[in-house]
């Protein structure tokens, strides 16, 4: 599916042409450049669209041109376009995309603590209006549901919201599973991210001196400090669509062989590669800044997930397992 408005097939262009007329009519007069950017096309393409509309000619009973428009002086005005002065109704996919997303936002907003969604009435009003406008096309959207993780502590979320609203710095006590320890840090909040069902605070971490994302269900405690947040100009927001966790060049490369009981690893963690070894076994390559995380993962997986590379990490897992078994007495150690 290509986004409407992108130059592509005749179908895409036809959709754009059909939307362009009511877009102008509902605004009476609009600038060429503003309209071009609203439709994601160049001014030249837009002018070509307008010419095509203006040239529409029907031949019977007498030839006539149903659309009259002008774009002199960079301003578009449509004098006459009676039959197509309203946009086409929403299709099922279109209505569903917006309704599913709005209902998801409403569910996130249910906690009442999410910045930007605190006013839940705006959401329910929009959902009702969109359902009414979409008519029958709205029905299948009920067959798609999104449930958001409600694990994040409500008071954590409330304080994150306070900090974002007031532009204040926060102090976090944050659990890092890879190291099995709480860490203390001051963070200048940037955004709240809700990705893959989890809620994160994105902020400038003053300890790491870098942008970091913190899973709210791992925040042990949070305090809003009486200090204004100072996000440095060079702080680059995370590109949410490219994935929150992307490997960096310095990352450790670990190879694991997974049995049927360890296949979930390939589903849960972004893998650089996944290779089918037959009999339900997989070989996966993981990239991580923290070897401790892979070490714990392999210990938990037991025979369902064995590290084959790097050798030092595999040896460390065996040493950990031996030391742990020794605690159960001599009989436990093979």
């Amino acid at each position, binding site marked *: *599916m290509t*986004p*409407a408005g992108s130059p*592509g097939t005749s*179908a895409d*262009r036809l*959709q*754009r042409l*059909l*939307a362009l007329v009511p877009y102008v009519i509902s*605004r009476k007069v609009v600038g060429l450049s503003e309209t071009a950017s*609203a439709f994601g096309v160049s001014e030249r393409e837009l002018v070509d669209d307008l010419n095509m509309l203006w040239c*529409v000619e*029907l*031949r*019977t009973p007498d030839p006539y041109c149903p659309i009259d428009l002008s774009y002199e002086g960079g301003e578009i005005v449509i004098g006459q376009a*009676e039959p197509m002065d309203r946009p*086409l*109704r*929403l*299709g099922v*996919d*279109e209505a*569903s*995309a917006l309704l599913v*997303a709005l209902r*998801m*936002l409403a569910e*996130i907003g249910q906690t009442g603590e999410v*910045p*930007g969604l605190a006013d839940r009435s*705006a*959401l329910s009003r929009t959902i009702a*209006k*969109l359902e*009414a406008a979409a008519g029958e096309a709205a029905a*299948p959207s009920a*067959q*798609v*549901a*999104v449930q*958001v993780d409600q694990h994040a502590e409500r008071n954590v979320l409330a304080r994150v919201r306070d900090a974002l609203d007031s532009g204040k710095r926060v102090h976090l006590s944050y659990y890092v599973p890879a190291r099995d320890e709480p860490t203390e840090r001051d963070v200048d909040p940037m*955004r*709240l*991210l809700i990705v893959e069902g989890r809620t994160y605070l994105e902020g400038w971490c003053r300890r790491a001196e870098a942008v970091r994302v913190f899973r709210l269900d791992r925040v042990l405690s949070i305090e809003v400090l009486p200090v204004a947040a100072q996000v440095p100009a060079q702080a680059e*927001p995370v590109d*949410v*669509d490219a994935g929150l966790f992307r490997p960096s060049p310095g990352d450790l490369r670990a190879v694991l062989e997974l049995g*049927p009981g360890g296949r979930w690893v390939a*589903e849960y963690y972004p893998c650089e590669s996944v290779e089918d070894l037959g009999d339900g076994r997989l070989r996966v390559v993981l990239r991580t800044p923290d070897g401790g995380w892979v070490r*714990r993962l392999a*210990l938990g*997986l*037991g*025979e369902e997930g064995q590290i084959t590379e790097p050798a030092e990490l595999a040896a460390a*897992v065996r040493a950990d*397992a031996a030391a*742990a078994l020794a605690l*159960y007495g001599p009989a*436990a150690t093979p």
Partner: protein
Amino acid sequence: MSRRKTERLLSLVVCLLSSERYLTATQIRAAVPGYPQSFDAFKRMFERDKEELRDLGIPLDMGTNGVLDEEVGYRIYRQAYMLPDIRLEPDEAAVLALAARVWRRAELAGAAAGALLKLRAAGVDAKEAQQPEIEPRLQTGEAAFGPLWEAVRDRRPVTFRYWAVGRSEAQRRELEPWGVVNRRGRWYVAGHDRARQAVRVFRLSRIEGRVEFSGPPGSVTVPPGVDVRELVGAWDERAPPLQTAVLRVRAGAGYGIRRRASSEQAGADGWDRVEAPFSDVGWFAEHLASFGPDVVVCEPPDLKDAVMTRLKGALA
């Protein structure tokens, strides 16, 4: 793509929208420029054009103007074509713009953008915030999402190969899909499993290969009162904690265990006694084993055995 085709389709839509009567194919050919001279070539092109318009969601109506008309004609009813009036307040337009961002780069991103375009065309000013304070996203990395959404939307049965947990090979399943649900970031499909004659829930990431339609649109009936969200919830929900583990945790370590503990008692020998609730032995054993020599299970015995099995497996 062909400019002439776009021009022809545009004229066709305008022609059928302006007409107060059903127009026969011959009348349409006379009115709309761009069709070929030969009637057969025209018929073929007109058939394809009708298909294109329907794919765009343009409601092409067929009928006759009176009982004496022998040939079926076409028109587009304005009422069926046009988006009803919709007026949004600024705060409503703002949440709409936020909602349209949710699918960005996911399966329905194009549909969301198309919807926003039509709503803007209706006069809604849904401008995107430059730096929104919140960025919610739905991802559809699973290849099965697209075909399963189509199947649910069009009420068609599907077949696919599925890796059930712990199986050493994928098995073929045939499903009447009732709905797709995203729960905690994972997509599931719920429906009636034809071979097992029962309600089943599948995780999309465990579907292997292609999802194929195995019946025509409209051939699946969703029983009234079905709530797919509840079905998936019931399937995915971990049983409530039923048991309590008694553990020895090395002093100053095992923080991830202590976070969920119901009680902690400091010991004199450098080990603390920790009690922690759990429901699933396998899952909890995996969690505990990941702490290596920082934790020892005292009770219950099956949990202790499960942890030792994992550790022995890691040693191999």
